């Protein structure tokens, strides 16, 4: 590459590459320029650089780095919460790394000074622009879309009883309701057995004989039996056809971190390869024609800085076109999918719009000569991308972290306000009173609240929570479930839980059942009102609790 140093300066010193006003100013106002004007400041297609550009770039970079640090701290702190889990922690981190790389490549060139910033990094930056800018949006969107498809499929397979409930509501004629009740108990294939074995009240409609036997049967039914029923669950594999299974696996893969890590790595390697190939071609052309096509002084020059030639924009355009088409397709799919409770879809669309605005601005600025040759040396317009990355960090990371913190605050407040359920909790945590409450609850036919509470405590300690969460829903929450809990607006609660579980292919959040737990404790206050009369020990415990307040 030593060829370049011998190359005569005169050929690059022409009025088209530097604005005359800039050159004039560098002579009249030397103090705002980073070095005194000389022939060497015009090397490699460069023009004199100002301190103004340096300070603006440093400031923007500083703001970006601080924001990213805050975002990362918040992310690590809230990593187990629903809002973060729903957006996938690995994806957020991968996107942040992509943004950070882009920002450093862009801002450091201005800060280090274009003259010294190695030319090969500049050419690499241009080759990496398309994936670094669009992949975060593409991957976020595609994850959202494939999760949506996956959940549609799950819904189809499991035929949720929630749907049938709403169907039930929409039918105004009362005579049909009995039949529907019956239908509901035969509904989803995987749960059919559960319903029929637990003789829900609805089965009494089928006839006097069955209800009598059911009654006696149920008298002997203990919690033990309920637990056995759980084992009878049908496996996923039995319900799905081979094709659906493959499709489901495919959706799962597309929504998993494996997919987007692969995409990042593969696209990075491809663009590295492209960079090498285009750089090689350029050297070939240079050797035959004597002029640099894309970058003044060549793709691989590491000893000094250089400037681009407009032709590199063609290479950039071809790559960008490919990614933009990909991004548009994903965003259209996103628009077609359902809205989610976490507003991931909305976030994705807003960020895409911002990205498009940034790209349009960049293209417009890049095609106005006075901006590229003059304004750029005071306010580097390439910093648009840093601003975009900043907005992406705020919308894509800081806001979710904020929602998560806000929710946690609300929850903790919520927890402390019910001193009644607080007291129940204290009693349940003590072995002897737990035994007494369990015993009394069993004899009052409301053991389900105690069992559910215990189960939730176990759930919270588990590492692999997915199956446990599904089991819990089947046992305690589905309409007609063996140990169905008495909770308000159960269909809405259930739908909400499902959405939380469906929003991620990873493990469901630890606090998934907080609302249900709270309701169980609340329900038990009624039980405790009755028990306190019967049991000295509990009465004494409660007195202690109230005394402590």
């Amino acid at each position, binding site marked *: 590459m030593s060829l370049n140093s011998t190359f005569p300066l005169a050929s690059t010193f022409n009025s088209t590459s530097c604005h005359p006003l800039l050159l004039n100013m560098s002579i009249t106002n030397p103090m705002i320029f980073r070095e005194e004007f000389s022939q060497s400041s015009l090397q490699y297609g460069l023009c004199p650089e100002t301190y103004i550009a340096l300070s603006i770039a440093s400031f923007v970079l500083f703001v970006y780095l601080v924001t990213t640090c805050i975002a990362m701290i918040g992310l690590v702190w809230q990593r187990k919460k629903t809002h973060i889990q729903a957006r996938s922690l690995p994806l957020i981190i991968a996107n942040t790394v992509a943004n950070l790389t882009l920002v450093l490549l862009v801002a450091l060139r201005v800060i280090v000074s274009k003259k010294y910033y190695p030319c090969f990094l500049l050419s690499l930056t241009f080759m990496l622009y398309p994936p670094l800018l669009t992949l975060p949006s593409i991957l976020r969107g595609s994850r959202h879309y494939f999760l949506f498809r996956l959940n549609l499929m799950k819904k189809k397979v499991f035929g949720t009883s929630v749907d049938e409930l709403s169907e039930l509501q929409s039918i105004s004629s009362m005579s049909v309701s009995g039949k529907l009740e019956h239908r509901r108990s035969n509904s989803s294939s995987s749960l059919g057995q559960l319903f029929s074995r637990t003789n829900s009240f609805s089965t009494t409609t089928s006839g006097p004989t069955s209800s009598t036997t059911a009654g006696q049967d149920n008298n002997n039914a203990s919690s033990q039996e309920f637990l056995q029923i759980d084992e009878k669950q049908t496996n996923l594999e039995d319900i799905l056809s081979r094709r659906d299974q493959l499709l489901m696996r495919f959706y799962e893969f597309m929504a998993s971190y494996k997919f987007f890590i692969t995409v990042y790595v593969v696209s990075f390697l491809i663009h590295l390869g492209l960079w090498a190939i285009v750089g090689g071609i350029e050297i070939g052309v240079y050797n035959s024609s004597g002029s640099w096509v894309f970058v003044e002084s060549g793709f691989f020059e590491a000893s000094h800085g250089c400037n681009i030639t407009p032709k590199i924009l063609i290479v950039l355009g071809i790559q960008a076109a490919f990614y933009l088409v990909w991004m548009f397709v994903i965003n259209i799919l996103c628009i077609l999918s359902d809205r989610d409770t976490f507003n991931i879809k909305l976030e994705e669309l807003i960020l895409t719009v911002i990205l498009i605005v940034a790209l349009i601005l960049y293209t417009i600025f890049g095609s106005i000569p006075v901006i590229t040759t003059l304004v750029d040396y005071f306010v580097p317009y390439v910093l648009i991308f840093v601003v975009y990355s900043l907005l992406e960090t705020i919308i894509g990371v800081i806001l979710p972290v904020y929602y998560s913190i806000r929710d946690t605050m609300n929850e903790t407040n919520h927890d402390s*306000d019910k001193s009644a359920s607080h007291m129940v909790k204290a009693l349940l945590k003590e072995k002897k009173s737990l035994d007494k409450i369990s015993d009394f609850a069993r004899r*009052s036919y409301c053991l389900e609240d105690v069992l559910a509470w215990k189960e939730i405590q176990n759930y919270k300690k588990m590492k692999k929570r997915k199956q446990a969460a599904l089991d819990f829903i089947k046992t305690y929450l589905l309409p007609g479930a063996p140990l169905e809990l008495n909770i308000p607006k159960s269909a809405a609660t259930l739908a909400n839980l499902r959405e939380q579980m469906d929003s991620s292919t990873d493990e469901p959040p630890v606090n998934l059942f907080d609302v249900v737990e709270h309701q169980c404790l609340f329900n038990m206050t009624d039980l405790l009102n009755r028990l306190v009369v019967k049991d000295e020990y509990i009465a004494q415990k409660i007195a202690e609790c109230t005394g402590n307040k």
Partner: protein
Amino acid sequence: MGNIVVSPHDKEGQHHMMATPTSNNPNGGSAATAKNKSEITVLLLGAGESGKSTLFKQVQFFHGVGITHDQERIELIEIVRLNVLENAKNLVAATQHLNIPIEQPENRETAKLIINSLNTNDLEDPSWSKRLYSLWKDAGIQKAYENREKFQLYDSTEYLFENLDRICSDKYVPTVVDVIRTRTKTIGITDMKFDVGDGKQLRLVDVGGQRNERRKWIHFFNTVDAVVFLTSLSEFDLNLYEDNGYWRVKESLRVFNEVVNNALFYKVPFVLLFNKRDLFEKKIATKSFSKYFSGFNEAEEKNPVACIEYMTKLFLNEITEHPLDTVSVKTLSAIDHDNSKQVFEEVKQFIMTQQHRE
């Protein structure tokens, strides 16, 4: 904090805890052998919030059990205040849900505290009486209250807010009326026994009314001697607690149908009580009754007697199996002590007469 419904010292008319399912059935018989028993089991059935537990509490009260003594009612302070908070929360949530702004800025502050941090112990401070009352009187909250059929709210809301000056005080002791008015969702099954003369005991069984709770009723179906089915007259514009989107009347009719036509109850005296008559009369004065029942003559909709007659027909139409001469229909206002006493006496007489007839 304990909330005692019944004296801890076992007395006459004690509050019985359920025996275990296996040893539960000393009389072991069906309804056919009922007349020989010394114990008459009466089930209080009905959908959620139909007033089963209110009637149960009234019966306890006029049998001198439970809430008669100040000392026992003190234990219920927590529950009463929890009711106040629940009501306040539901109202504030409703203003958000219905997009009705709370008008006064200081009431908005109060609303925020209620949602986020207020707990029952705070209500000992009398300043809360003023704040909550001011919130209650806020035009926004009142507007939400007028639209209360659109969300879940206890019937006792107005009563509790009007009595805040007593409730928000460190000297507060719930009155009998407070306890009767307080809503507690019954979980599982509970019962009480009391003497009814002739050496017989009446065992009154109270149950939870929500869908999941109804599955537990079956445990009592083959030992029952009489069924008292409650339904709320004032629920004609309301939706279910457990399923917000399902009309309560439809649910009540469905449950009634399932119970009254159950083969186990063919020979059992059956009482249908239309509860909350007081609320109902207030409600039809301002709300359209005929809007909810297409078959009802609109001109009569302000006449409670005609409306109740219509409801009676609607329920009796559901009876396909049970002999009609062993079904009695009455109206009730369970929060009214005298009315409850009178109606329950009538119900008791009806059941005893039917028993003798067998």
